[in-house]
């Protein structure tokens, strides 16, 4: 918890990163790897600067679709886990279907989605939604259905109905799990959007990666990857702050 320790950690992480980049930079010169195979960091930075407006535009585009997909996945997972937690019968019928669906490689659905909905936003949002919902659903549902037996019995003794137990205990106790699963969901949503962009779009970083590699402009592709990683990292950090504030109790933090 000590902030001086935090600073120290960040500092060492930065050092390690810079060192890696330096070794990478040098090795591309020493070993003479062609630029289109492994571009040195300096050329990636250069490409980023040169295409900054273009990259920003496409990054925001990708981000908007990923966030929309994530939001959809979060709402859907929450509602579905409520339904599944409430009814054991529905759970037994629906769970295998959902698990089965999750086993389908979602990338394979993109051409179909494009066929149905064109090349606009919808296939991208849907793909990110379809990839992101499962990692949110499972922890949330598990938390809802694993209310301790003793606690359950106490509530029933007090006269609680199943609905009351769900509202008063299952939902609040699932919140830390739900919120932390959004990290995984966010990463999945970005993957979904980028995949859809690579298959059926003329916009977004996925599209930029595909078109730049086909022109052997590898530095630009690396620039896209770096931007994606940085975006995912920052969003995850923001999510973490929201999480710690919203479910303080789960971390036993006194106010």
């Amino acid at each position, binding site marked *: 918890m000590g902030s001086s320790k935090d600073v120290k950690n960040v500092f060492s992480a930065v050092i390690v990163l810079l060192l890696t980049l330096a070794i990478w930079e040098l090795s591309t010169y020493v070993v003479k790897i062609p630029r289109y195979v492994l571009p040195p960091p300096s050329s990636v930075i250069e490409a980023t600067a040169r295409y900054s407006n273009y990259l920003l535009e496409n990054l925001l585009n990708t981000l908007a679709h990923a966030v929309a997909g994530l939001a959809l996945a979060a709402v859907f997972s929450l509602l579905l886990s409520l339904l599944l937690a409430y009814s054991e019968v529905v759970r037994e019928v629906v769970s295998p279907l959902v698990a089965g669906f999750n086993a389908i490689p979602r990338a394979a659905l993109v051409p179909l989605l494009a066929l149905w909905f064109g090349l606009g936003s919808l296939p991208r949002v849907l793909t990110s939604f379809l990839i992101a919902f499962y990692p949110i659903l499972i922890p949330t549902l598990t938390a809802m259905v694993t209310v*301790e037996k*003793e*606690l359950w*019995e*106490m*509530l*029933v*003794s*007090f*006269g*609680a109905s199943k609905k*009351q137990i769900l509202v*008063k*205990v299952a939902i*609040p*106790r699932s*919140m830390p799990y739900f919120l932390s699963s959004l990290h995984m969901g966010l990463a999945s949503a970005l993957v979904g959007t980028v995949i859809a962009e690579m298959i059926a779009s003329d916009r977004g970083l996925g599209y930029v990666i595909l078109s730049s590699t086909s022109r052997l402009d590898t530095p630009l592709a690396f620039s896209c990857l770096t931007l994606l990683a940085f975006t995912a990292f920052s969003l995850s950090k923001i999510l973490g702050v929201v999480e710690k504030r919203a*479910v303080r*109790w*789960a971390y*036993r933090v*006194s106010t």
Partner: protein
Amino acid sequence: MESLVRLKNVTVRYRSNGRRYLTAVSNVDLGVSPGEFVAVVGRSGCGKTTLLKVVAGLIKPDEGEVAYSERFFNGSKKKIGVMFQSPLLLPWRNVLENILLPIEIIGEDPANYVERALILMERTGLRGFEYSYPWELSGGMQQRVALCRALIHRPQLLLLDEPFSSLDAITREEMWVLLESVFLYENYTTLLVTHDIREAVLLSDRVVVMSGKPGRVKTEVEIPFKRPRNISLQYSKEFNEYVAKIKSMLSE
């Protein structure tokens, strides 16, 4: 007198590992009169918790029946207060909100019970901790919160399952005094399950002695001490005679 709740010839079996049946309690007759404090003692595994769950309506007996008095349980929801060995507090609720939980469950307005909650907190020495969270309290304090929660809705029947067994000896005695005073103030019908014989003799009007495997009621011992009972009662000769008598019944 009409019993508040009466177990008639109750037998409970558990299905363990699918096939084998384990008879946890067998042919138990037990009635609790209104305003009475009954303690059930017995060795570990003799079916005390099972019996309590039958009374709470959590387990349906395989044989026999549970009869609740219409006169006392008028209204749709039976009003039962429970307290177990662990406090089972909800970590996302502060102390006051935890205590008011049963009010929300019976569908009344918690705002009308805040004053009562504060009175109970006063009596249990919890004042000033209304807005603390469970993890900020000691084990003994958490158990006191659980006691307040069990009492907040003025239950017709109070069910306690080894509520003080995780506490140290001094805190436990404090809780005895507390329970005795609460019992006197509000005259709850109470069923206490414990394996602490001193606790049973000090607090109850009647001690039900169970034998195990399968659990049966062996005997019942009336405890005649006048109330209010003092903690120093446990040093009297008579008290210790009761304790010794029950102990010898248990080890037979």
